[in-house]
């Protein structure tokens, strides 16, 4: 696979965001004299004739770039506790190193997050599609813990404001320590000096950084469904 320069990746990334997320017709007028643009055209990623500019090949590559960028942001925010204003800048540099399957490893480590810390969706990779979760993972959703596990809340993975407000009203916010007590029939956990019960759908949205190593539920709830039948 040919390796693109950082600049080329940046261009693809911003084109992808405009085309796929803002649904705008991209304008590369400002890039007229940029040599990287010519290279991209030469390599077959961009076609001036196309309304969306990106060729099929370009679209795929661009999606991967966006994925790397947003995964990098997640990693910086959740594992390395980088504060918000720095995240974007740092991950802009970080993302270009994530090649050759490295991004999938990070994705797996993070537990296949669906959004970046700013709430934008992360394009799925091969690893997400398989959803084979490997047990070394550090960040898992509450749904996958077994009773007795403790963790620190790392992020809430939802775009739904109602759900978010509900979780907030219980005090589920990053940094708080949580201990799972039961997972059936409801998820019961201890946080601070209070206990709460929530359903599976809410538990799925809460991602925690495991604080102790030990077994957790690898199959993520499926075990219980089988057990019931």
């Amino acid at each position, binding site marked *: 696979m040919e390796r693109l320069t950082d600049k080329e990746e940046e261009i693809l990334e911003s084109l992808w965001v405009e085309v796929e997320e803002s649904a705008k017709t991209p304008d590369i007028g400002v890039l007229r004299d940029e040599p990287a643009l010519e290279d991209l055209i030469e390599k077959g990623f961009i076609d001036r004739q196309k309304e969306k500019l990106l060729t099929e090949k370009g679209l795929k590559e661009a999606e991967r770039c966006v994925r790397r960028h947003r995964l990098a942001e997640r990693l910086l925010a959740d594992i390395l506790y980088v504060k918000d204003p720095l995240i974007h800048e740092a991950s802009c540099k970080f993302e270009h190193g994530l090649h050759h399957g490295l991004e999938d490893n990070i994705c797996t480590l993070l537990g296949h997050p669906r959004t970046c810390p700013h709430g934008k969706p992360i394009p799925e990779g091969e690893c997400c599609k398989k959803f084979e979760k490997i047990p070394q993972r550090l960040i898992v959703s509450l749904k996958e813990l077994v009773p007795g596990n403790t963790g620190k809340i790392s992020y*809430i993975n939802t775009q739904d404001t109602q759900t978010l407000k509900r979780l907030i009203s219980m*005090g589920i916010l990053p940094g708080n320590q949580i201990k799972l007590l039961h997972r059936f029939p409801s998820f019961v956990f201890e946080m601070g000096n209070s206990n*709460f019960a929530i359903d599976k759908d809410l538990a799925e949205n809460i991602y925690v950084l495991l604080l102790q190593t030990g077994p957790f539920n690898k199959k993520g709830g499926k075990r219980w469904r089988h057990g019931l039948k």
Partner: protein
Amino acid sequence: MENKKIAIVGPPNVGKSSIFNNLSGTYVTVSNYPGTTVEIFKTHIKLKGKDYQLIDTPGMYSLWPLSEEERVARWILLKSSPDVILQIGEAKNLEKTLMFTLQLLEAGCPLILVLNIMDEAKDEGIHIDIHQLENILGIPVVETVSVRNIGIGKLKEAIINAPATTEATFLQYSRSIEEAIGAIASYIKAQYTIAKRALSVLLLGEDPEIQNIVRAREERQDFEKIVQAKEQLKRKISQPLEYVVNVALQEKAQDIAQRVTKSKKKKERNFSRLLGDLTLKPLVGIPLLAFFLYFGIYKLVGVFGAGVCVDFLEGAFEKYVSPFFVFIFQKIIPFEFIRNLFVGEYGIITLGIRYAVAIVLPIVGIFFFVFSFAEDTGYLPRMGAMLDRLFKKIGLSGRAVIPIVLGLGCDTMATMVTRILPTRRERIIATFLLSLSVPCSAQLGVIMAVLSQKGWALAIWFLVISSVFAFSGFILNRILKGKKPSFHIELPPLRMPRMSNICIKTYSRLKWYFKEVLPLFIWASVFIWVGQITKLFDIVIAALAYPLRGVGLPDYLAKVFLFGFFRRDYGAAGLYDLNKQGLLSMREVLVAAVILTLFLPCIAQFLMNLKERGMKLSIGIALFILFFSFSVGFVLNNILLIVGIP
């Protein structure tokens, strides 16, 4: 000069109502589960000769409301602009309490922070430096144990000396948010009960209520600019603002809490913790639920309440009370037809008051006692956690356990309590199920007493009613549009309930109940009396006889059904009467019991449905139930006839 207003705010289950009771000396129900204060309680109190108005509000966690309850609470806060706000919080959850405190302080509320349930915090080894906390926040902080009346004297002093607080700023957001707040604040021209900065923050969230308030009071172009500023910010930050604000609140609260708290090593699992934990395991929880239903509802309410107590009271009433009044009225009223209004077959005393006092009172009283007990132990939310998965199948969440179980006491009260459910969809489903298939305790008690002579009959009744409940919920869940419910509830620690508290609560619920019921019982007697004189009663009874014949029931049950419309329990009591006279076969009793259980919600419940759910829906539900209950009766009757039960 008008009296100063004191408002009590705070999340559910931290002792707001009990503080209210302590300060006022009157009683509001106090409970160990979210959602008892659905009505707003107000009272006048005197402290050191000064008059105050005391207002209790439903539970709220923050200034961003989630449920209808919280909306009501915030609305009171915004509307009444109290002179003093008592924020009640659990001492052992200082951090969470402080998040709300900070929000209130930024809103410029004149605040006193009350850290309640201090004893539990001490048991957990938590020590809070009150003076330091007062210094940091700049407001009075009082420690209390409201159920034991500890700290109330200090609280009263703090209220008397309460300073008018000015707006304080504790939180600093990122630059783009601060800019938006500044812009919005500059467009706000009118005066509001909360500070401009706090209002601007609220305006940045998704909060239609606040938006409407501001839209109504600002110039159009100013409001448009506010919306613009909000939209602009939205493009810059992609997380919902509520989240960003809460993260900031949390950080600040955590910081303060850590500075003022000294935590000794937490005691290892004590007995109550262990027990509380056990009740959440299905292996213990489900038998416990069965035990609660069998012993609490069947044995206590059914067998003891509707059997033993009713027999005794009914006997006493018929033997002594009725004859006594008949004798008196014969002396003072010479005209028989007027006498009939009071002591005739359907007389106010001989029927209305007899039903209310001798049949309904013992059953409902015992139910409320059992319910209050379950509530005070903290068992109800656990029951919700246990049943959530099942309730999801009928479109409800575990939270709905509270209104549904309360419905087994009084459906009218339960319909009111459906307000604790977060979505309109859930409230509709719960209202429907309560109207159709949840028998109230008087009904339940009487039906259990009538049917328990034959175990199989009771089993069939139970089977029919619970299938109707499950089936109709399942169908509603399928056909109603809208989001499926989600479930979250705080599980309070299991507490040993205090007998005095349970009694007070049972008493105040009974009082509410009788205020609702007794007038209707009396009106029923009056209507029937008028109906009898004008012969209208006979016409209605004759008309009702037709559908009854259709489902295989004798004509004289018509009046029981007519009673049933006045009050569910009134109809059930009528059935009890007829059965005692030995007039009915088992099949007839069973079919009548099923129809009466499903039958129209009583007038009181119908009125509550109107109030809570609106005209269209309530009438729709009533018509459907009328038709449906007789259909079920018809099918059941024919099956019983085919099987050969007389």
